[in-house]
Structure formats: C-alpha cells, structure tokens
C-alpha cells in the first residue's frame, strides 16, 4: 500500500504540486486525473523517486521511501511510460528481462515468465522474443512495456499515460488485456491520464488535480454525484451522462430483468451483474429488439435484458 503525505514540489518558480496526500490500496487502481500542467506526472514520479519531493514523504507499507536506496526501491515498482521507453538496442526478450536480471533471476525462469506474460498480453508467437522494438507496432510496443513492468510481479505498478499514444481500438484492447491479467487484481496501480473515460474505465479511486492542488479524491460516483466544487463539476460536465453509465452496476436493475428469454431473440453474450451499465450497453451492436443479453447475479441466477429495456430502466430510475 502506498501513502503519500503532504507532497510538495516546486520546479523553477512554479509550484507544480502543493500539499498532496492520498492512499492507494492493494488490488485497486488509483487514477491521477487532470489537464496537462496539473502536476499529475510529477506526483507519479515522486512515488518512485524519479523526482524528489521538496516537502512530504511517500510511504510504502509504512516504510518511508527515503530510507531505501532509489535503485532498490524502483526494482519493486513497475513503471510504464507513454513513449514506452523500450531499449532500442535490446530484443523484446532482453527488454522484458531487464528487472529480473537486476534481481539476478535464473535465465530459464526469466524465459518461462516472459513467455507466460507475453501470451497473456496477446503476443504469444515466439518470433516476438527476438524482435527489436523498431520492428513492432505501437500497440505491440506498449504491451511489451507492460510486460517489462510486470514480470517481477511488483506489488506496485505506476503508469504514465500508458495508452495516450495509441489509436482507440488498440487502446481499448490493451485496457481489456491489462484488466484481465491475473496480476492486475493483486497489484496496487497508480495511473496518470487526462482521459476522463479512461479514468472511469480503469479507476477505483480518482484523484482530480488542477494546478498542483487536489480538487477531489473519491470514487467514480463521488466525483459525479457529490462534486467538491465547480471545477470538478465543470471538468466532468461534457461527458457526465456517459460517465453515469459507469457508476451504475447492473445489480441495481437485476430484479427488473426478464426471467425468461423472449421468443424470437438471440443471446449476444453474458455478464455478471457486478459489471457496469456502460459495459452492457456497449455489447449491443444495435437497438434491434431481437438481441438480448444474459446477466448472472451473485447467486448464479440468470436473467435477460435488451438495449431498449436497459435504457428504459436507466431513465425510470433516474440519474
């Protein structure tokens, strides 16, 4: 678990971060959200001492960062950059093996873990191992970057705009692959983004920053339903309707779904009721009445709903 206490940083004459405190827990994703110049990247880099805070301290499992040599600290913290930062002179395999080598792992074990991770990230062909970064597409590079950050199963993963340079299709598919990684649920993730949707897609906790000051720290619904101030309200305004789909779990409507699949319809997929309304709505290819979705509750009961029905229920239940 990471705890940041009263971090401040001035670069030149500008206060980039001012008196920032937060906690990020294991298995949770904390998103640092804000426009450029808000201090979110500086905050992230203070967590692994790439930037040293002027004031304040970062604790990892209650141990202050300043008590550990920086290079040793960083070996336990995964790091993913927007530009990937892959080493151009090393192959994919050597890139991914960087941290394990620093930790003196055995070669066999490094290779086994590398193959395993690449497969989970959709790069299972062996030819990738011997490829150099310039031979990969943007999406493939970022997958390798993620694999390099995660191979040593660090308890903490820091990501600086990891999908910023990717096209929407790649961005989405990498997000899904990342979410599906077994490690994802066991790692404390802190991610920087300026993309509100991405924050809602991946974040459990969102820290909204402006000009180095915290505007609000809270859950997705906190920000949209109980904004601290006008800045938060305005920041989310343009997408507020869509963002509400993220904060409504399907379980909210479960008792109103159909118990039996209507005739002349076909099931396009199934979701647990813990998923959000946004996820469900996105599965439909159109509003045709013959498409239905199967929803499973926690006690394994299955019910059915259609696009039109979901929208109707959302409307009836209010924002």
């Amino acid at each position, binding site marked *: 678990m990471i705890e940041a206490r009263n971090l401040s940083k001035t670069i030149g004459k500008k206060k980039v971060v001012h008196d920032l405190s937060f906690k990020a827990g294991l298995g949770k994703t904390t998103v640092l959200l804000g426009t450029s110049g808000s201090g979110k990247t500086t905050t992230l880099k203070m967590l692994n001492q790439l930037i040293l805070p002027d004031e304040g301290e970062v604790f990892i499992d209650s141990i202050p960062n300043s008590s550990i040599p920086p*290079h040793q600290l960083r070996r336990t913290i995964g790091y993913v950059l927007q530009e990937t930062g892959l080493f151009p002179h090393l192959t994919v395999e050597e890139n991914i093996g960087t941290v394990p080598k620093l930790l003196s792992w055995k070669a066999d074990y490094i290779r086994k873990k590398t193959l395993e991770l690449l497969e989970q990230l959709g790069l299972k062909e062996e030819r990738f191992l011997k490829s150099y970064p310039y031979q990969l597409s943007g999406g493939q590079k970022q997958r390798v970057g993620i694999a390099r950050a995660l191979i040593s199963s660090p308890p903490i993963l820091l990501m600086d705009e990891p999908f910023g340079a990717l096209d929407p299709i790649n961005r989405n598919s990498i997000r899904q692959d990342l979410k599906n990684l077994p490690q994802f649920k066991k790692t404390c993730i802190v991610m920087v983004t300026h993309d509100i949707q991405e924050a809602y897609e991946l974040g459990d906790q969102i820290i909204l920053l402006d000009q180095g000051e915290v505007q609000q720290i809270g859950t997705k619904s906190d920000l949209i339903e109980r904004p601290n101030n006008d800045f938060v309200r305005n920041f989310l305004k343009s997408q507020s309707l869509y963002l509400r789909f993220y904060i409504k779990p399907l379980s909210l409507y479960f008792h109103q779904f159909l118990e039996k699949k209507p005739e002349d319809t076909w099931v396009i997929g199934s979701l647990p009721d813990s998923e959000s309304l946004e996820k469900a709505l996105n599965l439909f290819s159109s509003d045709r009445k013959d498409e239905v979705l199967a929803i499973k509750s926690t006690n394994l009961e299955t019910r059915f709903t259609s696009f039109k029905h979901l929208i109707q229920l959302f409307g009836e239940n209010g924002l």
Partner: protein
Amino acid sequence: MNAFFSELFHFFSQNLYKIGDQLLVHIGITFISLFLSIFVALPLGVFLSKFPKLAPPILSFASILQTIPSIALLGLMIPILGIGLKPAVFVLFLYALLPILRNTYTGISQVDGSVKEAALAMGMTPFQVLWKVELPLAIPIIFAGIRIATVINVGVATLAAYIGAGGLGEFIFGGISLNNPYMMLGGAIPAALLAIFLDYLLSKAEFLNLSKSKNWFWGLILLAGLSGLYEVPRIGSGKILAGLTPEFYGRKDGYLGLKSIYQLKLNYVIISDAIMYKAIRDGDLDLISGYSTDGRIRAYHLMTLVDNRHIFPPYQAAPLISTQWIRHYPILKEIIQSLSGKINDSIMTELNFEVDFKKKDPNEVALEFLKRNHLFKKPLEEGSEKFIIGSKIFPEQYILSAIYASLIRGNTHLKVITKTGLGGTQVCFNALVHHEIDMYPEYTGTGLLVILKPSEKVLGQLNSDPQKVFQYVQDEFSNKFQLNWLQPIGFNNSYCLVMRKGEIDKENIHSIEDLARFIKSSALK
C-alpha cells in the same frame, strides 16, 4: 604512361621492405595516439554529457586545437618534447581528441530521455544506465568519431617524418625534395590505401556487439597490439641514431652512396633540415647529414667527418647568370667576380653563424662583411633598367644575394631588386631560364647532379674534382641553357656527416670510414 607505371612498379619492388617498415611505423604512430585519445576523450565525453554546462567551453577548446596547422603544432612541440615519436604522438593525440570527444558527448546526449527514464525506473544505478543503456546506444556515433579520428591520423602521421618519427611520410617528403614522383607515390599510395582500409574496417566494427564488456577488452588488446607495431622495425638496430634529410636520403651523393661506397648501414630517421641541428645538439640524434658551411656546426660544438673516399662531390658556390647580361653589360661580370676568393669555408660559416645563431639580419651581415673587406661603395643613382637577384630559401643564400645587390648598386646605375626565398633549386633555375630573375648563387654539385644529371661514366671521369666539375657545368650550362657560371666565390658548401664533438673525441671517429667500422663493431657486440 606505361613507362610511368613500370618505373613505379620498379620502385615498389625495390623498396618493398622499406615500405613495409614505414607502414608498420605509420600504423604504430597512428594507433598509439588513437589509443591515448580514446583513453582521454571517451571518459571526458561521458563526463561532459553528465555536466552539459561544461561542454561548450571544452569542446570549443578542442576545436581550436584542431584549427592549428599540423605542421606548426609539430614545430611547437619540438622545444618541449624533442623530436621523434613523442611529439608526433602528442600532436596526433590532440587531433584525434576532438572527433572522439564530440561524438561521445553527442552520442550520449542524444539518447532518448524516455529511454533513460525507463532505465532508471527499472532500478538501474546511474552507472548501470550509462553502461547498459547510454553507451551501447551511443556506440555507433562514438565509433563514427573514432573512424574520423583514425583517417585524420593516418593523414597527419605522414608529417611525422618531418620530425624524425618515421612512417610513410619519409618517402613522400623524400620524393618532393628529389622531385621523384615514384618515391612520392611510394609513400602516398600506401598511406591512402591504409586510410581507406582502416575506414572500411571500422565501418564494419560498428556492428560488433560492443554492449558486451568482453568485446571492449579485445578491442583494447587489438589497439595495443597495433600500437606496438611501431617498435617492430627498430628491433635489433644499432646504438647510433642518424637523422637524414629526405633529399640526402634519396641521393646518390647522399645515403645511397654511403651505403654502396662505405658499406655504412645506419639506424636512421628522416627529419627536416630545419630542426636536425637542434636535435643533435640536444642528444635526440647522434649523427646528421649537414651542410659544411652551416653556422650551427660551430655554434653547437659539432664536427664534420672526413669524406676520405670522396662521395660528396664539390659544391663550390658561384654566381649563375644569364649569358645575355654578360654580353649586354660586360662590366657586370667584373663587379660580380670581385667577390671571388674573398669568402672561404670558415668565413662563410662565420657569416652563417651570425644569421643562424645570433639572429642578425642577413642584409646587416652582408654590409658589415663588405665594409670589413673595403668592398663597400655608396649606391649610385638608380636608372630604369632592372637587375633581379634571386636566392634559395636558406640564410647563406640570403647573405650572398645581399652582398651582390650592394656591390652592383655601388658600381652601376642598375635598379637592383632582390627576390629571396625562392624555394629549392628547381624554382631558382626555372626562374633564371625564363628571365624572371637575372642571377642567383648556385653550387656546382647541384648544377651537376640536380640539373644536368650526367651518366655514371661522365661522373666517373669528373671524379669529384672541383676544377673538372666547374669546367663541365660551365660548358654544359652555356650550351644548353645560355647561362654562365662566373668564378667560384671560394667556399665549398657540400654535404657532410656531422657528429657531436664530444663523441668524436671519445670514440675516436674522425672519418666516415671510422664511423662505418665503429657501427659494424658495435653491432657485433
């Protein structure tokens, strides 16, 4: 054209061993200095990339070093480092510094910031970032710098021959001073090929995996090995180190004659005549090929060896003038010949000493001489007719042309102009033939061997007899070029071998025969 190539081929086949030796020395000098440059510039470049504020002043300083003409830099080093390997290596080291330094600095600075950040964030120490990421990524650029430095060094190393460090420049300078294109190419072609070959080799080496420290190790071993080639031609050579001028080295009445007539085998370096006297005085050399009337022989306590088998032909100094003038202005002959018999060897040495050593103005020395000998007359009023006196580019000639100018001004109404410092024999001679000058002081031996180049048979008949040689050149020049040799001035400035007085006395070496015997016996020990 065919004749040209067969001559060239002949030269190469005759001098194969010598070229091989020069090549080894050349490679040696190049790589010793390269090795030192890499040793200094690589760490310094890394240091600058970490403290970029220091980079502009230090890089500018290295650029300024680069702009100093190499020959001047070599000259500047002689008072500090003497002659031979040390100053040559030091100058080449300075030249190689900039490309390696600049490319190391640029190479490391241009590594993408995100890559460096990633390396740090992975938990590498700053040293690991440098060693595993920055250096490997900078290698192609650093190597390009080393390549440039190598090619520059191969080129500049030819100048090393000027200061007695050897290498392929020996034949290049020899060829230039003897006007022998085959000898010049004998040095220039191997030098060019060496540069091309090394450039090619290094272009391949860039792709070697230098991110592995093992490969660096082998690279350094290779460099050290190449540097060591410098010593190869020196193995087993004697105690006496001779310095020969490029011209002397290639002439029949020079080293070639010493080898065939005296069986003299010297351990020698090729060196410019401007610095060899100082080098022998300072003990960098033990023997040089000098000129018998040079003022520094006296000044530096040196002595000439007796040429008892007469391989150095007489070099009597005499005015050389176009025949036209003698006919047109008969009195001129008498005025000019009034100097005959007034200057013997020791007087000339004395006069040269005033200029060489005491740094007096040649005009002043000439004036004092004329006054001492009651030859000085106040200049008469100048008319419009011009008379141009030339001279070669050394003090003795400056003094002589100043004496003649003053004599003619004092006795005629001619408008006398002096054109001093006209380079070597060929320049002066051609200027005279084409009436760009009207007279200059020349030496009978030079006229014989450089201009007329008679057959072996004729040379045998002349048998180095001063009188016969003078008669021969006078007749030939008059017939062939319409030029007149006037009466010799009275001194003889021939080639000679010069040693320090102390050693001559100690080892009892007085003649070239003694020297040949001494070298043979010391080689047996």
